[in-house]
């Protein structure tokens, strides 16, 4: 293990690579290098090439560490590629592996990621596929057979300008993204063409992730206000529909404003609306 090498291969800015464990929840900037815990031990206080003897070396629980969004592996370290706060999640259920590290960052421009559910707008119908704009650099392609119950004879009723909720099956930087409106079992599970009325608006990606977090209160509070239908796309698009135009507009404004409001202000607004 090249401990001395580790110190001489510092980044150009002269930063010492820090242990990922100490940087949790702190803001990291692109270009910083992070050490994983096992390297941290090796490059510990000795630094002179000695590895501390371990009698129970086998119980090192940090096996496979997953490198999430905003991080990249460079050699045996993690290189930060986005600015934001560093997060870590322990693996659940005592499974092996060192958990996941990722960077929480804020942005408005969406980059297609495989498996993401997004709202797209159909821009063209050509032959057997639809071209769907998802907010990325290229329109995604959606085959007409990728709907539940679609066959060659039974085509889905999709027009140019319709809203589609689907997920990506292919999304990398080398190819045009492809999306489908069925899951792996062939069921729609909520995907497909979104209904005719309602309002579509755009928010930042961070707000979407916040709203989709399992314990998000904003949604529960909003749900108590009045009956509504809402679809969140990971590309920053939200479609909302309530009984009247007024209610829909209120919902859209609240969701957009939630980003910059404290919980306090939000509760005030909701209590005012409840009257």
């Amino acid at each position, binding site marked *: 293990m090249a401990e001395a090498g580790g110190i001489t291969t510092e980044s150009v800015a002269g930063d010492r690579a820090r242990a990922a464990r*100490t940087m949790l929840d702190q803001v990291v900037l692109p270009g910083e290098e992070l050490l994983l815990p096992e390297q941290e031990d090796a490059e510990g206080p000795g630094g002179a090439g000695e590895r501390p003897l371990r009698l129970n070396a086998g119980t090192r629980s940090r096996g496979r560490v997953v490198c999430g969004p905003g991080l990249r592996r460079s050699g045996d370290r993690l290189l930060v590629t986005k600015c934001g706060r560093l997060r870590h999640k322990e693996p659940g259920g005592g499974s092996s592996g060192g958990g996941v590290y990722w960077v929480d*960052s*804020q942005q408005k421009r969406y980059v297609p990621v495989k498996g993401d559910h997004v709202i797209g707008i159909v821009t063209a119908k050509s032959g057997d596929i639809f071209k769907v704009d998802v*907010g990325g650099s290229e329109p995604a392609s959606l085959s007409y057979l990728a709907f539940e119950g679609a066959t060659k004879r039974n085509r889905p009723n999709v027009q140019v300008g319709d809203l589609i909720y689907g997920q990506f099956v292919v999304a990398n930087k080398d190819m045009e993204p492809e999306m489908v409106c069925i899951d792996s079992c062939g069921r729609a599970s909520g995907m497909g063409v979104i209904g005719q009325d309602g309002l579509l608006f755009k928010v930042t990606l961070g707000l979407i992730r916040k709203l989709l977090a399992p314990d*998000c209160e904003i949604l529960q509070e909003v749900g108590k206000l009045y009956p509504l239908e809402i679809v969140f796309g990971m590309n920053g698009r939200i479609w909302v529909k309530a009984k009247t135009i007024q209610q829909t507009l209120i919902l859209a404004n609240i969701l957009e404003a939630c980003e*910059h409001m404290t919980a306090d202000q939000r509760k005030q607004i909701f209590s005012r609306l409840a009257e």
Partner: protein
Amino acid sequence: MKETPLSNCERRFLLRAIEEKKRLDGRQTYDYRNIKISFGTDYGCCIVELGKTRVLGQVSCELVSPKLNRATEGILFFNLELSQMAAPAFEPGRQSDLLVKLNRLLERCLRNSKCIDTESLCVVAGEKVWQIRVDLHLLNHDGNIIDAASIAAIVALCHFRRPDVSVQGDEVTLYTPEERDPVPLSIHHMPICVSFAFFQQGTYLLVDPNEREERVMDGLLVIAMNKHREICTIQSSGGIMLLKDQVLRCSKIAGVKVLEITELIQKALENDRKVRKEGGKYGFAESIASQRITAFKMEKAPIDTSDVEEKAEEIIAEAEPPLEVVSNPVLWTPGTAQIGEGVENSWGDLEDSEKEEEDEDGTDEAIILDSIKMDIGVEVSNIGSQDAPIVLSDSEEEEMIILEPDKNPKKIRTQTTSAKQEAPSKKPVRKRKKKRAAN
């Protein structure tokens, strides 16, 4: 990049909303968005914000020989540019139609109305005249570029000072700003464009359309007027048929709006003049509020909720009664106090609590939140690490986003009125580390 297409759903919703006289941001039919005018340190430089639409205007001057057929008049040159940062659809080669249309309208409004006295720009007849150049850059496109651009142009022209010149016989002396104070341009009147968007073949009209409304409109009527109710330019595009009384009504509305905007412009110019005379600080940096979230500020739009039926008792019954809290104010430096600790943010609520203590020491800048929440059982164990001096950064362009701090609805939250300071770091997301009260 191609423009994001407008879905059928949005179009239908917008048209239906307009039929019900509702706009997306809660404005009334004849309401303008908030106009904000700020000046730079140079004379003739200003930024006008109409809602989120932003235009930067800069005026400059140069001594040139006059045009052959107008030997005693100065030259005015207007140029509007759609910067690529204004909208993803604006690319260097692709914006020609819109650009030509806007430039043409601006020229007609400002040049043909003779709002600037070009005779006064003459220095030596036939040889030297002033050429005044107005450059406008669109920084952000959220609808109604023409209004914002015309306001920016006229404000920049009123704000501009050209170097003083004196002619004695054959001798022309050009004074630098240090020798003699620069003189303002001679402006007769201030023409301002007001845009009206028409929908459903002229049945509904909206003043100051924003970007979405512009996409679904049928036609646009632009009236340039000054405060003396003189129409300088009028242009209708989109091919809609307008009735005579519609146009008259629009001109009356335009008259009212132009009066308001002219007052605002005068006030802004007066403020800036006062600040410069008293030797205070001026410029763009001063015009940015330092105690608020500066980016994407949402203005309060009054929402009419009279037709929303609610069951308030149900909500009250479900909510739990607030618990008692104890507050110990801690004084950091004169003017900054802290009551209680914040609450752990529940978004990504995954880290260990022990790690927080170590992480606190790692931050080298103390950060203080806008709203400080009260907590049960205040833990003061790591107050020691906060003794570092509080540093305010010079950058006023950061946006401090409060992540969802509300984890437990039982705790009450109040906002302290003690001095609060903006997060000093330049990082986009910054939040003071909070201790989890109940461990």
